[in-house]
């Protein structure tokens, strides 16, 4: 399972794990999006602690979820990124839109 989901008081955490690339991203995306649309949370937390590899597909994944969440008035936060993955995320300027912690 590439993503585990925990929902608590309008806060929805997706625990990503393994490798995020163009091959694995669609399943992760679908799982998060269907949950977003169903539960309408106020805050989406993407937890990358379990991620062992990502390329720019990880950036696309966060960008896309941020946009969808925004449509539902839901804020997005990303946590648990390794140093190098944070570096890749920051190339996109996403830190202006999404909270990284």
């Amino acid at each position, binding site marked *: 399972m590439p993503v585990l989901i925990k929902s608590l008081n309008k806060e929805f955490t997706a625990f990503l794990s393994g490798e995020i*690339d*163009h*091959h694995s*991203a669609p399943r992760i995306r679908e799982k998060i999006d269907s949950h977003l649309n169903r539960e309408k949370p106020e805050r989406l937390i993407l937890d990358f602690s379990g991620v062992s590899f990502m390329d*720019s597909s990880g950036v696309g994944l966060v960008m896309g979820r941020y946009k969808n969440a925004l449509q539902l008035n839901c804020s997005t936060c990303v946590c648990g990124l390794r140093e190098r993955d944070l*570096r*890749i995320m920051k*190339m*996109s300027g996403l830190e202006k839109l999404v909270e990284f912690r």
Partner: protein
Amino acid sequence: MKKITNSFKMALPSKSINESFSRVVCAAFVSLADPTVEEISDIKTAVSEAVTNCIVHAYEEKNGIIYISADLFDDNTVRIKIRDKGVGIPDIPKALTPLFTTAGDDRSGLGFTVMESFTDKLTVKSVPEKGTTVTLVKKLHRK
């Protein structure tokens, strides 16, 4: 003149499952030069970007062959070539611009930017309708 000390070639179908396969193969090859863990990760990330581009852009998620070749040199640099016979890139400087993408849906437009930042040299050669060759060069420092 620097000399090639080792090399490999492979050709594989443009299936997304081969993104992880090709980055692991390149990481294993580079490991022979005793690089740092960080350098192996850099190679994996850069190769993953180039191979993904063949699958997504060059062959537009249809069948095609991706050609990967790599050489290690006696000065501990590695050169990896990723080649496709896909649609080609009409405007290379534009394609290299950060955040530029021709595919919507969750592409970030950062692939080339990532390849540039995780290697020492990126070269892109392309002929529209004929294909594209991406060359990555990186100096490895023995751990």
